[in-house]
């Protein structure tokens, strides 16, 4: 009897179609707390992508996506609890919060369960380095963004720079990468200042910079709201007129509503919605589904993430086996997402994606290009 059962089971397995019925994805992301401003819009994009795929019959026309969501409240401990619960439900892939720290809190569970995990939008290149084989990022790395903006500054003939960074998080130390590239390309870094995240007042720093014997051509920072507007306004009202360069964290409506102070700010981000581009198409779809305009590129970044998982399932011949999916993700090339083509092949899990340069002009976006950075200039990930 037992033999018969076994034979039947084997027979059933052999006869089953190679495409599974459902792909179960777990999302342990921050819907409340300090990371919610980033994770919540990413999840919107994820839902749009999943609904689109499921409406078309699923991945490859057969595999529907089932999403199980848990709120981790922007807390590292809560992330690891939520991840353990999700792993216990038998998921094939995992989505982790936008910041490297809570994402890394889950790495022990992820590695031992051998399930591929993708952070929604963490951009620290150290994430997959520390996270190991099963950890993937979904955003242009900090070191790549800094290389693009430093090269742009040099191209514009800016020779001197000043950096303002915060040692509080990996992301806010991006200016250190900028300084490295800027000096490598022959520029001079006149000085640096640090601040803490959430610091309200930048007048002391602004006064110090205004009093420098030589004004820097550019000031680079990766601070974001609310620090960035305070910093910018303090610098401008102290009489500092240097070119400001920022990063994706300020890709937000506030940056475009600062009036005179905001004009001319240049920053790097994950994409630009040119007419006819996939991002413009995504934004139209976003408006159609939600009824409002997409406020941030992080919506599209969520769409990208599901496109990556879809491509991995297709590349693994419809398999939903986590190990097969991990190997498939690691070998993906030129997956077309909403923001850019995405390649994981040949990387350690930090994808090669397009970086766009945007300048604030007339309270809107001016597209400066999507230059491919010189690989020789990209700094090695720096452990804090």
């Amino acid at each position, binding site marked *: 009897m037992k033999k018969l059962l076994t034979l039947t089971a084997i027979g059933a397995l052999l006869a089953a179609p190679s495409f599974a019925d459902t792909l179960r994805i777990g999302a342990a992301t921050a819907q409340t707390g300090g990371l919610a401003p980033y994770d919540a819009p990413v999840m919107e994009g994820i839902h749009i992508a999943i609904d689109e795929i499921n409406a078309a019959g699923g991945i490859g026309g057969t595999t529907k996506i089932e999403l199980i969501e848990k709120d981790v409240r922007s807390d590292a401990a809560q992330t690891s609890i939520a991840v353990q619960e999700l792993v216990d439900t038998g998921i094939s892939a995992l989505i982790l919060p936008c910041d490297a720290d809570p994402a890394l809190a889950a790495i022990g569970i992820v590695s031992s369960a051998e399930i591929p995990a993708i952070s929604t939008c963490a951009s620290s290149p150290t994430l997959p380095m520390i996270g190991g084989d099963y950890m993937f990022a979904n955003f242009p790395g900090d070191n790549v963004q800094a290389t693009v903006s430093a090269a742009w500054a040099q191209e514009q003939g800016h020779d001197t720079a000043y950096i303002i960074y915060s040692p509080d998080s990996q992301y806010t130390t991006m200016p250190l990468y900028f300084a490295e590239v800027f000096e490598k390309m022959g520029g001079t870094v006149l000085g640096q200042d640090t601040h803490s995240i959430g610091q*309200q007042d930048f*007048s002391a720093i602004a006064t*110090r910079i*205004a009093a420098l014997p030589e004004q820097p051509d550019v000031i680079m920072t990766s601070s974001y709201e609310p620090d960035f507007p305070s910093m910018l*306004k303090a610098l401008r*009202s102290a009489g500092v007129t240097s070119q400001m360069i920022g990063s994706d964290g300020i890709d937000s409506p506030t940056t475009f509503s600062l*009036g005179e102070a905001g004009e001319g700010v240049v920053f790097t981000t994950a994409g630009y919605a040119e007419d006819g581009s996939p991002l413009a198409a995504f934004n139209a779809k976003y408006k159609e589904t939600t009824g409002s305009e997409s406020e941030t590129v992080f919506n599209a970044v969520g769409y990208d993430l599901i496109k990556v998982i879809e491509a991995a399932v297709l590349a693994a011949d419809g398999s939903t086996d986590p190990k097969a999916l991990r190997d498939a993700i690691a070998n993906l090339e030129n997956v077309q997402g909403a923001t850019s083509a995405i390649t994981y092949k040949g990387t350690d899990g930090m994808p090669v994606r397009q970086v766009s340069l945007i300048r604030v002009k007339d309270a809107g976006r001016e597209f400066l290009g999507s230059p491919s950075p010189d690989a020789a200039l990209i700094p090695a990930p720096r452990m804090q």
Partner: protein
Amino acid sequence: MDIFLQQTVNALALGGTYALLALGLAVVFSIMGLINFAHGELMTIAGYVLMYCGIAGVSFVVAVPLALMASVLAAVLMERIAFRPVRNGSGATMLVTSFAVAMILQVLFQNLISTRSQPVLLPAMLSDSVHIAGMVIGVNKLAAIIATVVMLVFLDWFMKHQKTGIAMRAAAEDFAVARLMGIRANTVIAGAFALSGLLAGVAAVLWVSQRASVDPLMGFMPVLKAFIAAILGGLGSLRGAVAGGFLLGFIEIYLSAFLPPEMQEFREPIGLGIVVLVLLFRPNGLIPSATLKAEKV
């Protein structure tokens, strides 16, 4: 010397904002013995009113009084709904209640408005600067200093010459005796909350005019600073709160301005270290309240 003066103006502006924040906490504490950690959310509410006014095209001159009214109203409602039922509870009960109020409001903002920060349209004038005696002073710095002075003068007048203000001082000194003299506890406490709401509103306008955006969690940092300033000045003492606010502002700005670059990373621990040092010598704060123990009524 120029730089020193310039940094002193910066410190005055920041210290003034901290003083207003600390006063808001102290007014309520002096009467109820409650440290209202939801004070920051009153600021957030005022900030959202500024934001919606900007979207609706209401001029800033009108938006500011509306924002102040909103935070006063929210403070009074907060007292009525959340704190009155636990007024006779222990200090811990009230403290936990205030944390709960803060968290509930934060989650409501995140779910009903937006998790992302929303831009606040500000008059361009606020980003300008004026030249006074060789110094460059931002208009919002100037506004902060003027607003602080106006509020302090108003508060002094209110506490000395207004019936509610006098009643509040009496209640802070000895609530039981004050009640025997016919002062209504509800009026005094509601008055204290309204006043703290007004202070929160003014601080919010100054705070938001620097950062140009509001987000659901923006109240946390100011209430933390206010708490430090109030402790530094002497909990429950209004003059102490002002002194503590200014001292904290001066410590932060001077450290940020004159600490050598390689020490800048340790600016905050050094600043808090100075606060601890002050408290070692004056354990009850700079200007302690005459009656440290708030009574229950």
